[in-house]
């Protein structure tokens, strides 16, 4: 697996206001901003949302323009198809609002993961899951599950890129089987491997034996 496979949405070390802020102080504004732009659903709100996100990346988190644009570049087929469809169906204003709102939500969510170490994220998830304990939910295990799910997304994106390159090298870039099957097999192997690593470290176990 290529190194960059681990980097999409993964923590980036910087000395910034957002890096130093507690998880809740980042999560609350991000959630509020995402809900607001989706509720208001206007080009002006989208524009303000985009402005705030850009400010958050460049000033609040001291991230680079490249780190801001990278997630959008990875999503370009989706943005293009959705934007073209909305333009054709409802006009340029709606196309801008829909695509812009998606960009605001994705970038804002990534701003949390880019500025929060996974252990702090895990602590936050465990804290949020605590009220579910009376229902028989183990907060530590639920938090770990969600953290692993988040961690697996960049891995799978990297696997898809590797698979695309391998197919291209063999002249099979238009063959869906050559593109999808290795990703699928890789995902199953990755899940098995992670499960075994967790079991070997006793992290998949409950506190006591049966």
């Amino acid at each position: 697996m290529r190194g960059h496979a681990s980097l999409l949405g993964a923590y980036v070390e910087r000395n910034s206001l957002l890096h130093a802020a507690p998880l809740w102080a980042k999560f609350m504004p991000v959630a509020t901003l995402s809900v607001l732009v989706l509720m208001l659903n206007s080009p002006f709100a989208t524009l303000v949302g985009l402005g705030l996100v850009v400010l958050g990346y460049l000033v609040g988190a001291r991230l680079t323009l490249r780190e801001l644009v990278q997630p959008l570049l990875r999503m370009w087929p989706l943005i293009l198809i959705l934007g073209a469809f909305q333009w054709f169906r409802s006009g340029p204003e709606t196309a801008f609002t829909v695509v812009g709102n998606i960009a605001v939500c994705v970038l804002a969510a990534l701003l949390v993961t880019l500025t929060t170490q996974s252990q702090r994220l895990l602590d936050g998830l465990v804290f949020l899951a605590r009220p579910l304990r009376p229902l028989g939910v183990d907060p530590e295990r639920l938090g770990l599950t969600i953290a692993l799910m988040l961690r697996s997304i960049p891995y799978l994106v990297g696997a898809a890129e590797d698979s695309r390159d391998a197919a291209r090298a063999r002249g099979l870039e238009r063959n869906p089987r050559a593109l999808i099957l290795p990703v699928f097999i890789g995902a199953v192997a990755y899940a098995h491997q992670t499960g075994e690593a967790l079991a070997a470290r006793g992290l998949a176990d409950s506190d006591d034996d049966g």
Partner: protein
Amino acid sequence: MIIFKGAAVRAEHPATRQILEPLNLTLAEDRISIIGANGSGKSTLLKLINSLVLPTSGQVLVNGLDTARKGSSVRRAVGFMFTDPLSQLIMPTGREDVELSLRRRHRNAEERRSAAEKVLDRFGLVHLADQSVYDLSGGERQLLALAVVLATEPEVLLADEPTTLLDLRNEERVRRMFRGLEQQVVFTTHSLDFALQADRTLVIDGGRVVFDGKPTEAVAAYRRLSVRDVAHEEPRR
């Protein structure tokens, strides 16, 4: 002390295939090496000890705990090091991975952070702690994997071919680390020099322990076995 009481492993598919023949062993020495060809059953034997694989018949006891009934307790007492450290390192950076190992022991985030720092310092890995695990060299990753396993201070360390992916310099680093450990260490290896560092060596062939004794004699027995097997192969045209 690790005791195998007739412990055997049979494959699920096809059920007739025996991966490990019934084993009766007591492993009490500080350093035990296991050598054998690829697919001979070395890794399965190792995985039996921390209940990553359960015996289909018989029993494995680690410090008196049955691996089939006390799996959680056994895994807390037994650390496992994989051949490929990337199979073992789950979190994006070394610091976060060490902290993950310490989550059970230290529920408080500050305590955990401080304990992780001490572990990283002990292994001389502080300067690499915040780098992506994908950006580390093979040797650095393997040392980090060792730190991650030993962070929980297990009583026994199992290592499955820990030097196979390493160059000579890094192999020597890992071997030195192993020499200095307080824990009982059981490891599989293809490096016969490494195998010779143990107090006792097992030779596995076709799921059976075919030699059990002094490392020098075991290595000689393994060489004879390999030469004999290759000599019996039909020559290719």
